[in-house]
């Protein structure tokens, strides 16, 4: 029997452990489908062109239910960041010093995405020296396919 929802964690042997996978909802699913193709896209209103994130059924600006997915350049700046320390889920605790960042997108600074700053698309979550993290630092999106088969955007420093 095929499960109708993806597993909440990736616990396949050799995956390096139970990192949480995105659990998409109906509105968010296209974001992950585009990410799997290496495209960073944000939901936009087909009526008034306003970008919105997180995706939702209706435009809060003009109440249109028609939407499209606008491709973004993948460039942005760090808006904020944290360095989580234990107690954490084991898969994250095993990567001490990892960061979680918020990126404001260059074309739409009010659209901000949570992610990780890494040295390469497939590098560990703690591959960047925490001392390199700065609010305002320019970053660019890359795409990493998690061992569970889900592709997520990650971020590299523009000036490593």
């Amino acid at each position, binding site marked *: 029997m095929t499960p109708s929802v993806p597993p*909440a*964690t990736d616990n396949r042997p050799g995956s390096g452990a*139970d*990192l*949480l*996978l*995105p*659990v*998409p*909802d109906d*509105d*968010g699913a296209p974001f*992950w489908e585009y990410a799997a193709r290496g495209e960073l896209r944000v939901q936009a209103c087909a009526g008034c062109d306003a970008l919105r*994130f*997180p995706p939702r059924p209706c435009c*809060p600006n003009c109440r249109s239910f028609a939407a499209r997915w606008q491709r973004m350049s993948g460039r942005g700046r760090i*808006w*904020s*960041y*944290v*360095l*989580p*320390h234990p*107690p*954490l*889920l084991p898969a*994250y605790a095993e*990567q001490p010093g*990892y960061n*979680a960042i*918020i990126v404001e997108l260059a074309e739409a600074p*009010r*659209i*901000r*995405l*949570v*992610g*990780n700053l890494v040295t390469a698309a497939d590098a560990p*979550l703690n591959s960047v020296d*925490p001392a390199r993290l700065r*609010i305002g630092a320019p970053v660019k999106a890359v795409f990493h396919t*998690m061992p569970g088969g*889900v592709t*997520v955007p990650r971020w590299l420093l523009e000036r490593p």
Partner: protein
Amino acid sequence: MGPTLKDATAIAGIGQTPFARQLPESEKTLACRAIVAALDDAGISPSEVDAFASYTMEETDEVEIAKAIGAGDLTHFSKVGFGGGGSCATVAHLAAAIATGQASVGVAWRSRKRGSGPRPWKNTQVQLPTPGQWTRPFGLLRPADEIGMLARRYMHEYGATRDHLFNVALACRNRANQNPAAIMYERPLTREMYMTARWISEPLCLFDNCLETDGALACVVVSAERARDCRQRPVYVHSAAQGLPAQHHGMVNYWNDDPLTGPAWAAARHLWKGADLGPQDVDVAQIYDAFTPLIPLSLEGYGFCERGEGAAFTEGGALETGGRLPLNTGGGGLSEAYVHGFNLITEGVKQLRGTSTAQVPDAATCLVTAGEGVPTSALLLRS
């Protein structure tokens, strides 16, 4: 103008269990003990209770509680969402019900074994699709991480420092040191302890985070007229408000024009509109403190200072006894007990009765707030 809530109802009784990292009794038993104690404090028989209010996260329900304490027929019961954001709204819902004749004796309660129970964020199976899909995979796992993001940005924008957050932690700890019921009674905090503490989510350290506590509390709400015949001095619900601002996203409030303007601002606008008083008239405040940065944000939101000045407000002992705004005088969630902010309500009542362990002389008005950073609520109490 129709009927208003202003001073129409009062808190006539409060009750609580001991607070500890681990209590042997069940949440249901603890809830019953706190409720029976609150009714006894008011001098009202449990059989007169006809209304209940609690949090959606409360796991003891009205059916079980009502039959255990021997309540009468219930004609009003409500639950408020968003965790600690619902604390003050439980009292507000009872006040509204009583002021409009839907009930006459209301009990609000919270019973929680957070100290010995599971950490909610560990259950990855209840990872909500929205907004969990946008945050959890990246290791933004816990409320401390989510608020840490806002704290880092706040520090960046306004020059707030860890010393400002320490001021908050210290004020709460100092009051807990005076409160024998507090978990941190007789356990002083120093600046060195704070500055060398382990990180939880940098920029937040251990002492920026609330306690993990087992315990239960309750309060009894009746009409102002009835309260004047009760055993204790009435503490009037002068004004009350909930707040869920436009385009708010909960604790991950990253996706709007101004993420640092949170639910406190929305609640405050309505709270002061319904009051004869303003921030300058508040003698003592109980401000929700699951995390220290919520205090500067709330000070701004409720109008004690301008935007960006909340951190500076904490300087010079402003939050200590005798300061500009004595804060969390029982020790708060940081140092008395973390029971989703309900102990802030009961401490507000103690201040206005004149029975706090860190009594502000002649306190006549107290602001109590619920969790900032999530859809919230607030009460303005007066004696």
